[in-house]
């Protein structure tokens, strides 16, 4: 909801036509480590408990991803986002928002 990134500077960019180098850090961009992927098809809010209910492709209730902590992958409640999780921050340990 809040765009934390846009604090400095906040005005619209005014390109001056200078050619500057594509940043060195771009070369270090790589895919995320393996993640315990979503094992559900849909998620809805339980009006009574205000917690999420997860369902598989057949519409049957399935376990919340947070309860799965199989070894070797990164848990849904851990710090490693996978970026494509529903409205997750790319790095799920920092940031709260993804306004795109």
């Amino acid at each position: 909801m809040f765009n934390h990134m846009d604090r400095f500077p906040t005005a619209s960019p005014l390109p001056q036509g200078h050619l500057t180098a594509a940043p060195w850090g771009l070369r270090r961009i790589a895919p995320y480590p393996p993640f315990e992927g979503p094992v559900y098809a849909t998620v809805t809010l339980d009006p009574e408990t205000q917690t999420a209910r997860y369902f598989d492709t057949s519409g049957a209730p399935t376990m919340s991803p947070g309860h799965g902590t199989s070894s070797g992958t990164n848990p849904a409640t851990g710090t490693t986002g996978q970026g494509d999780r529903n409205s997750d921050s790319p790095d799920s340990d920092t940031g709260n928002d993804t306004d795109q």
Partner: protein
Amino acid sequence: MTLVTNDDRPVLVVTNLDDPTADFVIAELHGRGVPVVRFDSGDFPATLSCSAAIGGPDSWRGSVQTPSRRADLGAVRSVYYRRPSGFAFPHLDKQDERFAVAQARYGLGGILTSLPGCLYVNHPNRIGDAEYKPAGLAAAAAAGFTLPPTLITNVPDDARAFIKAQGPVIFKPISVPLYLVDGKAQTVPVTEVTADEIDASVSGTMHLFQKRVDKVADIRVTAIGEQIFAVRIDSGLLDWRTDYGTHTYTPLATPPVVERSMRAYLKHFGLVFGAFDFALTDRGEWIFIECNPSGQWAWMEPPTGLPMTAALAALLEGGLCGQ
């Protein structure tokens, strides 16, 4: 007119639907009989509405309405700000969308960040401040933490000289925005960098270089209100976040001097929650790496038995009265 007792005052949980950590905390609040109103800002305006009036003797009078609950804005005891999604108006053209988003952010967002008598865990604007790594490093130094030598620069020669003087050195992103390759989000893994890898393209934007700490283990300390939960993470990895399968977790005591610095750091940013990362050296030193104002923590509870969910629920339940 009915009197609102403290028991009736709701906790607002602002997060997206797929947030298992929020579910744990909400279930705990439910068990304590604390009313919860949960919503995602991304639901606005389709299934979330809000009216707030001011100008009389009170602060905001009004409510937020979700499909299942209504929260009186003057009665909110605390806000748990987790991982809400952004506003979306995909049916509008770019300019119209920008207008709609700005009204939503400054309007709904402005109301939700100025609720009277409300405890924020954490306040979104305080999170925004604390997410600036350089500000975090400056606050950490002022709070008395030991930091690894760090250079933030776009001057290639300075980067090269730093690596030669301090090596081994790692490169870290200062922030990780959305970056898609074939529709898949990407990241910047924390990796070592040598002086001969540096070239003129370092001038292209700011880059963060940090001396690699010779560590024997990592420590994650989660501060939840007055409570502190320190866990030693043994993984053998440079960045433990890359593979949880290698971890062993051991709760440990936080040295008083470290705790004092943590308190000073949180106070500086106005945070009541913080996830601190430290590197533990073979001499037993705790080297500050960073503090995430919205860090994850729930995955550590099962292997350690630390009552973190209960601590977070208690913090939200207590509201400002508990402070």
